[in-house]
């Protein structure tokens, strides 16, 4: 379910915004705040939702998902926090280098792939680095509702702990910050032990951290339904390859530094998407014919589907081989 109205084109419905503030938090992370250009109120969003930010970078359209971190009850503003990734594909660098207060930008309606389970008796948040962002909105929401929560936030150092001070001073008994450079670490086993029945745990951070939390919770007998995670993948570069799209009746080339989804969009194919990070399942595409190897990187398809060679998620997955024909 999405908050977006019925859509005629791929992706969630769009909102025209103006950058109302650019707030550097530390060496790596900057907060960007948006106002609507038409002056209307933003649609309300549920905590955990993300928006896809459209960047016009020298003739190239970049679309990156970012968690909304502002207070969901504040419809006058949407805010995201972006960690600069110098090794990445360039979206975060564009945000840091090119985006200024007053710039006109386009973002999508919020889509939530990481919602709170409001049946939960208690919510335990585990954040790694920039993974703190969705929890900012969740904490605001639960504080308003009077919900029970606690946050365990691991970051590299005091200097890079975005929002750590603000959160600790506002909620001194609920926020626990762990600094890698002081050899502090989340004592996961201890903190899973003894949580009341009906507790839900949420993790947002690097892949290793997410796997660690899922596996530890499972060995402690936690139901899968009580462990939630979100990780957006950025498409990885790879060897260029050629794809035949049979519905569109065209042959397209996927370049080294673009994803299959981006290549389709560049060629004018209206391919469905929502998260662009291998999580939401919206871009799932049937394979008609393939002679070669798939490089599956998504979190959507299960292992059997990956092995079957019948489906691909064009937002993050690639192909190496002689021929690939897709039903698109």
């Amino acid at each position: 379910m999405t908050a977006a109205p019925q859509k005629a084109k791929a992706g969630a419905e769009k909102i025209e915004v103006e950058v109302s503030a650019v707030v550097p938090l530390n060496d790596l992370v900057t907060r960007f705040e948006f106002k609507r250009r038409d002056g209307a109120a933003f649609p309300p969003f549920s905590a955990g939702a993300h928006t896809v930010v459209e960047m016009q970078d020298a003739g190239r359209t970049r679309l990156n998902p970012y968690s909304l971190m502002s207070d969901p009850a504040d419809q006058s503003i949407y805010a995201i926090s972006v960690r600069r990734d110098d090794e990445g594909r360039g979206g975060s660098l564009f945000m840091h280098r090119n985006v200024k207060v007053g710039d006109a930008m386009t973002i999508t309606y919020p889509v939530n792939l990481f919602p709170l389970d409001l049946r939960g008796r208690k919510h335990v948040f585990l954040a790694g680095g920039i993974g703190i962002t969705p929890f900012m909105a969740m904490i605001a929401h639960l504080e308003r509702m009077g919900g029970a929560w606690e946050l365990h936030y691991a970051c590299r150092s005091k200097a890079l702990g975005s929002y750590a001070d603000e959160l600790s001073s506002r909620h001194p008994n609920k926020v626990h910050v762990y600094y890698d450079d002081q050899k502090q670490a989340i004592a996961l086993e201890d903190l899973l032990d003894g949580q009341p029945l009906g507790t839900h745990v949420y993790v947002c951070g690097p892949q290793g951290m997410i796997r660690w939390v899922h596996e530890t919770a499972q060995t402690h007998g936690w139901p899968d339904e009580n462990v939630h995670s979100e990780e957006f993948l950025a498409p990885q570069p790879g060897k260029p390859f050629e794809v035949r799209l049979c519905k569109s009746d065209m042959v397209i080339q996927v370049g080294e530094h673009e994803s299959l989804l981006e290549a389709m969009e560049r060629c004018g194919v209206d391919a469905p998407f929502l998260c662009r990070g291998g999580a939401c399942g919206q871009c799932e595409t049937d394979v008609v014919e393939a002679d070669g190897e798939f490089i599956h990187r998504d979190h959507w398809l299960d292992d059997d589907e990956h092995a079957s060679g019948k489906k691909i998620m064009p937002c993050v997955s690639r192909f190496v081989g002689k021929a690939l024909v897709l039903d698109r």
Partner: protein
Amino acid sequence: MSKFKFPESIRSRPVYGTLEPRSGKGHLMIADAEGAEALLDLAAQDAELFHAAHIIFIPKGTGETFVEKLRSRQPAILHVAPSYESSIPRIRRVLSDAHMGLQVYLAGTEGLMGQAQNEAMNAGIPHTAIQTEHRGSVARRMQCVHCKGITEDVMTDPFVCSHCGLNLFVRDHYSRRLAAFQGVRVDAEDPGNVPEPVELYK
């Protein structure tokens, strides 16, 4: 043999599995009558897990048949209750004291498993994480959709509502919230035209 294979039915109808040992911080087992056999099978698979288990057992018609067998497998606690209703305060107390990582195992009749599952769900455990295994009677706990009264241990279709006296036909339409199947008046259009009752699954 206490096992019965239910025929395929509509989606609403609960499907039961086979209890298996699962790692966890506590183990609560609730069974009635032949459901004890499923617990004994579990004990045979993992004696250590069984030593940590809190068992609530309602013998119903089986009397003493299973009580000593269960006790000989040395569960941490074996509580034998005269009826499901009488065991509810204990079930609630155990759940309210429990922490995440508790595993719940239910075995026996559908009425018992449905009601105990409801208690565990209300305590915050998702129903998909609660293990169930049907054993023994195929009798059903039925709700009359007209008067809302519950009739326990229904063995025939149609049957007479124990509250309002209507003749009800036994549906596979199930309510997880009520832990009951729905019974609908069988002679609504032609009052008095009630088919001969047939034993369930005969």
